[in-house]
């Protein structure tokens, strides 16, 4: 393909896009919706999965000491806990340590850095288990120990995350398929509109001996631009949405236990998947619209 043609195809594609402002807008909108929904569910699944992995690797149960106990009394529980079966090791964590490690998790949250008091945390033991499958029994045994008020086993939570991940995955796959088809359909119709607008030009190009490839390119570019624009817009929307949700989770009393994977770690795959899917939708839509011009 000659170099001067590429600029021509690009300009034609762009001008096609603007000549159907509303349809192009709709096509980009539906692509954005498709990518955002896909992205959101995928990111939920990614986070649930990450959470699950941390929990599993920690292999750890927290046993909270009765708040009326003094520090010495609390420390006295150590040997009793160590003697339980299925307990591999026991580590005492004071209120102050608990606060420090919590703060370390959120270095950017000024609120946590300045306003926290150790009193809102409880003394606790981090109990490492030998066999994760016996978590239930060990948790029961820990609860029976005098002075242990509460045990935070991750079993229920991890089951929760598994459910979230599975639902997110299923919903994600179903939605993606539907939205993918809808997006391609809408882009295809947008471009069919352009080909209808340009039918005279297409007829003349064929008559003077333009190749099918030449006739097709501007429409492929149009689809490509629509898809790419949709991908770029959804990327930034997804980013904003993600940050907002992450902030919401971090500041929510019950949810702050969840550690959200930072967007910096995710933006490359998100950008790649959005870009790839957007372009696939755009080019796929345009190819389906110009199928009839593929014939001689």
């Amino acid at each position, binding site marked *: 393909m*000659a170099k*001067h*043609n590429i600029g*021509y195809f690009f300009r034609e594609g762009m001008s096609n896009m603007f000549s159907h402002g509303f349809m192009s807008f709709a096509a980009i909108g539906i692509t954005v919706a498709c990518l955002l929904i896909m992205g959101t569910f995928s990111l939920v699944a990614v986070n649930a999965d990450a959470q699950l992995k941390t929990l599993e690797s920690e292999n750890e149960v927290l046993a909270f000491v009765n708040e009326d106990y003094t520090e010495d009394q609390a420390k006295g529980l150590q040997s009793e806990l160590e003697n339980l079966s299925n307990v591999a090791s026991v580590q005492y964590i004071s209120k102050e340590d608990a606060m420090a490690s919590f703060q370390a998790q959120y270095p950017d949250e000024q609120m946590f850095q300045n306003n926290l008091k150790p009193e809102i945390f409880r003394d606790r033991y981090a109990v490492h288990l030998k066999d994760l499958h016996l978590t239930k029994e060990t948790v029961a045994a820990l609860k029976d120990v005098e002075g242990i008020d509460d045990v935070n086993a991750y079993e229920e939570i991890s089951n929760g995350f598994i459910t979230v991940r599975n639902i997110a995955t299923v919903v994600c796959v179903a939605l993606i398929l539907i939205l993918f088809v809808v997006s391609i359909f809408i882009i295809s119709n947008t471009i069919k509109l352009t080909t209808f607008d340009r039918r*005279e*030009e297409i*007829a*003349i*190009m*064929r*008559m*003077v*001996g*333009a*190749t*099918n490839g*030449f*006739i097709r390119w501007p429409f492929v570019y149009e689809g490509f631009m629509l898809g790419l624009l949709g991908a770029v817009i959804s990327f930034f929307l997804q980013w904003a949405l993600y940050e907002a949700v992450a902030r919401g989770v971090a500041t929510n009393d019950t949810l702050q236990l969840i550690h959200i994977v930072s967007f910096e770690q995710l933006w490359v795959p998100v950008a790649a998947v959005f870009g790839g899917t957007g372009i696939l939708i755009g080019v796929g839509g345009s190819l389906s619209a110009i199928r009839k011009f593929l*014939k*001689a």
Partner: protein
Amino acid sequence: MIRLTDVEMEYENGTDAIRGITLNIADGEFVFLVGPSGSGKSTIINLLTGELIPSAGRIMVNGFAVSTISGKQLPLMRRTLGVIFQDFRLIEKKTVYDNLSFVMRAVGASPKEIRKRIPYVLELVGLKDKALCHPTELSGGEQQRVAIARALVNNPTTIIADEPTGNLDPDRSLELMRLLIRINELGATVVIVTHEKELVNRFEKRVVTIDGGKIISDQIGGYVGGTIHG
């Protein structure tokens, strides 16, 4: 070089438009194709451009076997033809210049070639000062000359015109014919379909007359047969 051998064309609805035509047109010839309405003239043109595929027979156009041509070859064959229609088929939202540059681009001409070629062709058809007009700002005769310029601009070896004078008054038609003859003198093969007896009779050119899908006469000068309306 155009060569039709025992060509037949039956449309899908069963109309026998062409019933065995054999016709040779050498390079550099000027030929009028005449005949009554419905005799099959446009069908022949569409067979030559590869728009239609004959039901039987063989068609060669400028070295391409059009009757069996592949999708890849068809555009190349069409680049050897410049086609002019009765209804001009200009793009109204493009200027005269852009109507021409558009078809040059379509066959891969570079911007430099385009800048060089278009003024020459516009000069030839006498529209040099109308380059930046839109077709709607031109008279019918001027529009038809733009259509001719467009057919010429890619430097085809053969010009094919289906009723190019249909919408023009007699003076404009005559002017147009003179232009096509001049183009022929510059080396192009020219095939013109027309109804206009008066016009054909003014020139001593080869006239092929068809009726009912068959050639009924092929001679120099003179429109044959009294049954021709138009």
